[in-house]
């Protein structure tokens, strides 16, 4: 009984090993992206036009950036994912974990039309490309907050006592936000003690660990001012709630959703085509309309109504965004979390 099975397994293995060499165009590729409206938008803006143009079907592998990275690490020997979306920060960890392949400008001609800030290089080679920015800006209740806030320091005003919310380190924006505050306050790099001292003085209603918790807090009136992602804030405003979103004078911390070519994929050519599709002005504009992602592609035209909701605000551009060096953030990550735990998340 065992002999036929062993034989079949051997034949199967042989087929799997030889198949990529034989296949000219695969019938499908697998792309990892996020759940919810993000996944819906990626599908509508990138995957569907791609399948239409090439005839290659796209299978979605849904998960958060961290989960996707964990999968890629496990599948290192024989990846089943060909292309992966991962956020800034995780992208750098993916590079360190050696699961990303080089993006070749010859195979992905649209790289030439992409903002230089959105091309991520490791030495001379490109390992990731941004497909759109989102920011953590100042969000407020337009009924309860009379004067439009202009500075992050407004959160410390006594009138907002017990009604402020900012991210906790459990949120992906939590650690970078602490460093962002340190930077805008001009505190010495690497010494966060005065930054924490000031955060400790903040009379917060809550420190949100998920975007959903933040949305909930603004919706219920638990928080009337604080930080939130532009996507989440405008979602609330679109539902008719009195919520406003501004990029304060100090700027807004931002990051992006990036595409990666998975190292060792058997469908490299099709995968590169997919990434190229995501970098078309049409795809970038579509993501801006659906997710208010700031386009990473040059010369993308969006409706004025959408332009207002982009991460850099009504009049800004990518220059207004505080894009951090994730290597620096990741280096300080464990210390920031630890200090936060001991000083802030404690009675």
């Amino acid at each position, binding site marked *: 009984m065992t002999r036929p099975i062993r034989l079949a397994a051997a034949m199967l293995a042989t087929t799997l090993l030889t198949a990529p060499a034989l296949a000219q165009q695969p019938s499908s590729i697998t792309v990892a992206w996020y759940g919810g409206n993000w996944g819906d938008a990626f599908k509508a803006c990138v995957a569907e036009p791609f399948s239409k143009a090439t005839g290659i079907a796209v299978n979605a592998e849904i998960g958060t950036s*961290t989960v996707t990275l964990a999968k890629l690490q496990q599948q290192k020997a024989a990846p089943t994912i060909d292309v992966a979306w991962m956020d800034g920060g995780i992208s750098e*960890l993916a590079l360190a974990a050696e699961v990303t392949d080089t993006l070749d400008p010859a195979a992905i001609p649209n790289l030439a039309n992409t903002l230089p800030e959105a091309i991520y290089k490791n030495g001379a080679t490109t390992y990731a490309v941004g497909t759109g920015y989102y920011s953590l800006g100042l969000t407020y209740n337009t009924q309860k907050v009379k004067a439009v806030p202009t500075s992050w320091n407004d959160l410390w005003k006594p009138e907002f006592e*017990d*009604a402020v919310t900012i991210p*906790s*380190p*459990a*949120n*992906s924006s*939590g*650690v970078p936000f602490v460093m962002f505050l340190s930077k805008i306050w001009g505190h010495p790099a690497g010494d966060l003690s005065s930054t924490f001292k000031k955060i400790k003085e903040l009379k*917060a*209603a*809550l*420190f*949100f*660990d998920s975007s*959903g*918790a933040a949305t*909930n*807090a603004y919706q*219920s*009136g*638990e928080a009337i001012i604080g930080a939130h992602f532009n996507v989440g804030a405008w979602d609330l405003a679109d539902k008719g709630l009195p919520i406003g979103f501004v990029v304060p004078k100090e700027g807004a911390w931002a990051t992006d959703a990036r595409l990666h070519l998975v190292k060792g994929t058997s469908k490299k050519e099709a995968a590169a085509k997919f990434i190229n599709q995501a970098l078309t002005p049409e795809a970038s504009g579509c993501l801006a309309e659906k997710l208010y992602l700031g386009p990473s592609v040059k010369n993308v035209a969006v409706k004025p109504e959408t332009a207002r909701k982009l991460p850099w605000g009504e009049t800004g551009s990518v220059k207004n965004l505080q894009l951090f060096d994730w290597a620096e953030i990741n280096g300080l*990550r*464990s210390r920031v*979390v630890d200090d936060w*735990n*001991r000083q*802030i*998340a*404690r*009675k």
Partner: protein
Amino acid sequence: MSGTLRPVLLLCALPAAFFVAFFLAPMAVVLIASLTTAAGQPTFAHYLRILADTYHWDVLWVTFRIGALTTLVCVLIGYPLAWYLVRIVKWRPWRRFCVILLVVPLFTSNIVRSFGWMVLLGRNGLVNDGLIGLGLIERPMRFLGTELGILIGLVYILLPFIVLAVGNALAKVDPALEHASADLGATPAGTFRTIIFPLSLPGLMAGAVMVFMLAVSAYVTPALLSGGRITVFSMLIFQQYSSVFDFNYGGALSITMLVLTLALVAIAGRLSEPRRA
């Protein structure tokens, strides 16, 4: 291997494989990670870092205090509730309805229910509106971000476990024992104290242990209802896995938590053990 033995072995291997794959293997992975450095060298450093730092003991104290209070409140509310369902309710459809009411929330997500409490317990929530309306308080009380808020959420989510465990134990007590007790001169209160309560104790303990374990290991409810202002141990673990990516230290935190919880449960079990059993 004989032909008849093979199916039997396969049948035995299946549950064993399941156990290994879903319980033993993940545990082993966590345990090994906790005893190695990022580079894979064996070390006790993670445990030393946890145990030598009073901060971790503070968080453990908060965690176990919330767990113990949750268990206590669940027992205090759950026992009478189980009594009501098993002893007072005579009309079967009503009893069935009550049990369904109790069990149905178990099928909805923790996250949904905890979000519900966030809305109810908020400054403009129903609870505060009610208390102000009744004239009991003047300004909205703070529930979110307090241990009281976490306690309310955990009690709500874990109460069914106690009620079902105690109800099951109470239903099994032979009514003849109560008659015998009354016959021998015990008042109803005396019968409860000396007969019914001791006989329902194993069910109560089982329910309490379950609630305590779930309460100290709970993440979602404390995370949502603490508003990031109170830290319980599961949050430290989650942070290491989700934002710091230090699986070695995170693993050591998990094992510490597991060992301490099991030790506490074992002590509780020993204390409540009947003398002879």
